[in-house]
Every structure is written in structure tokens, then in C-alpha cells.
């Protein structure tokens, strides 16, 4: 059985950043990339399952992104797994989370994966995971905080936490897409040896058209929304309260009581 894990490089913005001339994005020089935090957890979930069922379950990281997105895949492969998939082409430029779901669904079909573990969201927008499920029409559960699978079963049991502090256990049929919540496990760090080995592991580049995705179904044309304008929100500053902890707490209590009466 194969588990496909879509990951992405999250864009982390410098404190001082510029807006692009067309007003629809930020200056690329103000952006740094790191693996999306949620994806650490979804990849770890897949790795743990693959290790538990060594030889029977394979975990494969994939990404939809240009060449520099491969860094995120290598980071995953440094922790485990044998190969990765990267889908990109000029037509994919400008893809929103919905457009990105199409190559992920196509790769899952090509690999005959039975599970897709996606992050619940990315630091920017997200929700690609649940969009992915809709394309082949797979069952899906979002915000999974616990997971149990018995080998050979055509179902799996997941735990999620709806608002209100109660956990719900749900059984879901396979193949399925699960979006994984932060904190489901403790993602491992890559060893130096793992980092070295990851450089030699194959990452297959695939063009969207080779997965049967035409230019109208990816990029801006295949997206569900378009960025019209980007702006910087106004920032205020709190009224700071000084003094000893006792003085601060006293003033805070006063404020809370005042606001409560308001």
C-alpha cells in the first residue's frame, strides 16, 4: 500500500518586505522558504505507518512547485522514504490551493495510493488536501488528531477534535484523504546521515500535462480565486502596563473588571 504525502514550502516573509510592482504579490527577495509546519506532522504520520509495516507500506512525499520546492522534498527524504515526486511546469504558475489539488489527485491515482495525508492547512492559505479528495471522489476527514490503521483493512479509524473540547472517533473507508493536525505526533529530526542520503534519493519531475492535466485546469485558469491586490494592514500598539508583577496584575484585574462591565 502507498501513502502519498503532499508537502509544500511555506513562504516566510521578512519583517521589512516590499510589495511587487503589480500590487498582487510580495517582492520575492523578502521571502524565505521552509517546510510548511503542518507537513512535518503529516509526513511523520506516514513514516510511522510505513515503519510499522515495513515492506508493505510505502510513504511518498510529493510537491507541486518549481525547482526550489525540491528542498522541502529532500527535507522529508532525509527523515525517511525512498523517493519523491515533484510536479511543475509553466502552466502551473499562479496555481491556488484548488488548482494544486489536481496534480496531487492525479499522482495519487498514478501511484495507486490508498491514503493521502495532507497538512490541515499551510501557513498561507491551504485546504488543498480536502480539495484533492473531491477530484477522484474519495472519502475525506479534516483535522485529524489521532490515527489508527490495521494492515489489510479497507477502513481506518481517525480521531478529530471538534470545537468544544470533545474528541470524535470516526471510521473512514479507503482510499481516503486525511488532513493531519499539528501535534498528532512528534516529528523526528533528520540525522546527518539521513540528510546526506537524501541527496541521492530520486525525485521524479513530472509536468502537469503528463498527468493528463490541461492548461485550463491548473495555474490561474484552473484556480478558484485570483489575487486582485495585496495590502499591508495597519498596525497599532498596545498600551503597556509597567510595574512589579503584583502591580501589573492589579492593573490587569482592574481592566478586566472594567471591560466586563462595559
Amino acid at each position, binding site marked *: 500500500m502507498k501513502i502519498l504525502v503532499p508537502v509544500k514550502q511555506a513562504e516566510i516573509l521578512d519583517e521589512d518586505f516590499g510589495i511587487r510592482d503589480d500590487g498582487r504579490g510580495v517582492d520575492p527577495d523578502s521571502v524565505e522558504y521552509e517546510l510548511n509546519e503542518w507537513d512535518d506532522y503529516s509526513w511523520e504520520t506516514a513514516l510511522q505507518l510505513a515503519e510499522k509495516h515495513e515492506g508493505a507500506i510505502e510513504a511518498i512525499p510529493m510537491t507541486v512547485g518549481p525547482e526550489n520546492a525540491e528542498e522541502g522534498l529532500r527535507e522529508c527524504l532525509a527523515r525517511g522514504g525512498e523517493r519523491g515526486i515533484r510536479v511543475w511546469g509553466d502552466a502551473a504558475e499562479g496555481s491556488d490551493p484548488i488548482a494544486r*489539488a489536481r496534480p496531487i489527485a492525479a499522482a495519487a491515482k498514478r501511484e495507486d495510493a490508498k491514503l493521502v495525508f495532507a497538512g*490541515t492547512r499551510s501557513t498561507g*492559505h491551504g485546504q488543498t488536501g480536502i480539495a484533492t479528495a473531491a477530484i477522484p471522489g474519495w472519502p475525506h476527514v479534516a483535522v485529524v488528531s489521532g490515527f489508527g490503521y490495521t494492515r489489510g483493512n479497507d477502513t481506518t479509524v481517525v480521531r478529530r477534535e471538534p470545537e468544544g473540547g470533545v474528541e470524535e472517533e470516526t*471510521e473512514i*473507508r479507503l482510499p481516503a484523504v486525511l488532513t493531519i*493536525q499539528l501535534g498528532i505526533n512528534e516529528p523526528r529530526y533528520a540525522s546527518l546521515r539521513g540528510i546526506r542520503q537524501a541527496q541521492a534519493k530520486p525525485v521524479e519531475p513530472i509536468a502537469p500535462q503528463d498527468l493528463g492535466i490541461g492548461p485550463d485546469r491548473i495555474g490561474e485558469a484552473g484556480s478558484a480565486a485570483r*489575487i486582485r491586490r495585496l495590502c499591508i494592514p495597519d498596525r497599532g*500598539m498596545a498600551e503597556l*502596563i509597567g510595574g512589579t508583577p503584583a502591580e501589573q496584575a492589579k492593573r490587569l484585574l482592574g481592566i*478586566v473588571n472594567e471591560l466586563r462591565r462595559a
Partner: protein
Amino acid sequence: MADILIVSEQRRGALNPIVAEAVGAGAGLAKATGARVLVAALAEDPAEFTPRLSLAGVDEVIEVPVPAAGFQSDTFEAAALALIAARRPAVVLLAHGIDSLGYAPSLAVRGGFGFASDVFGLRYEGGDLVAVRQAYQEKAHVEMDFPGKKTVVLTIRGGSFKPPEESASPAVTRFAAPAAESRTRHLAFRDPEAGGGEDLAAADEDNVARFGEPADSGWLPKYRQAGQSGKTVSACKVCIAMGGSGSVRHLAGMKHVPSIIAVNKDPEAPIFTVARFGTVGDLFGIAREPKAQPG
């Protein structure tokens, strides 16, 4: 002008408060275009929710019986899809939260709809629907539009729109959703371990939220962080952020709280840019103090 549809959401009999806020958002849009505002109650016994959904600005409450007692993605998706096909609304508003995370994106894909999530601003600009959401860990706001989309599905961030205060007497209709095969099966509800953390004694009645750093340091399970799973503190009047820096996504869970009081040992923490009051200091030291003082 095509209608605006709000899909309600409830858990164990309690209506999600963001639904009323979405009604406020929808009514605001409708004022600009003359659209009708429809609210769909998806529940086992939807009539139970009709009085609470009969808010000022609502033209019609549509009762949609669904076979699931709680949220079930296949059932909700099929019902919403059928309702959208029947009514052809221009805008569909859902509460941004754990349930909509589970079906809004797939609904958008299946219907070929426009889609944006966690929206906190909404308007028409020269006939184009413009939705505002955050980007880059709240450092920027992004205005989205939806060229060529006849229907746009949006999930609405809690605390960003004003719910109508008055009630009204909208028309009440019923819609029979097609039967949908449910491919997940509810097994059980469980009460997880009691939440940790030290609450500020005086704030016990307010809903004290928990933020990233205490969770990152292992004092709390990580999934309890605000702003992660749609868990927000927007319904609070006052939020005391103990040790939350606001540096990454915590702000998403609380930005629209009217009064944030931030306690953080880092005077440069971004939380202070959205907080109304702040103290620079150790959260444990300050949290213990009120217990020793009469409040």
C-alpha cells in the same frame, strides 16, 4: 441579482455563533445588490433552528433535513451541492471552522465554484465580488476576486462581521436533499484530558484561550492552540493572551476580539501590535498574582 446563501452549522444543538455573523456579512452584501438572503439549516431536525436563524436581513430560511445527527462530510457536501444547484446563489457563506475545513474545498471543486477561506472582509467593487483574507502569517491582507465564477463559496472568519441584533419573520421553506452515501462512520465521542494552564483567576468566566508558546513548550497539547483548527476566541469580549507572541498564526484566532490583553516577556512580540493592553513580564508570575489579590 442572484441570492446569497448562508449554510448554518451546529454541534449538539448549539448553533455556531459565526452563522449569525455570516448572516450579517450576507445582509451587508445584499444591501448593495438587492439580492435575497437565504439561510439553510442542515440538521436532523432543522425546524429546531429556524427561530434562531430568523434574523434581521434574512428573507428565507430553508430547512434541509439530513440523516446525520452531527457533521458528516458526505451528507453535508451533497445537501449543499444540491441546494446550490436548485437556488443558484451568487455567494455561499459558511462558518470558517473545523466542519467547513472538512467539506468547503471539496464542495468548491465539485461545483466548479470560486472559493476562498478564512475571509474577514467582503464587498462588491464595480460588480466584482471582492473577499479579503490574510497572507504571510497575517503580515499582509489579500483581496481576492473570482473571475468567471457564477457561484463563490467563502468561509467566514469568526468575529469579523457583526451579527444582526434583531430577529425577523422570514419565509420558511423545506428542501429535500438527495440521499448521500456516508463513507465515514461515527464511532464515539470522548472527553480528552482536562485542559492545563493557569487561568487568570479574575478571567475564569471569560473564555481564556491557549496559544502557541505554551503548547510548543509541551505544557499543552499542540492541537489546543488557538487559530489552528478553527478554534478561535472571537466570541469573547476580552482575551488575555498569556505567553502568546502572536508571531505566526495565533492572531488568526483572536484578531477580531475587541480587547486583547497581552502578557509576554518579549517587548517586541507582535501580539502587542493587536492588543489593547499589554504587560511585559513572565506569564506565570503575573497569572499567580490575582489569586493572591481580592478581585
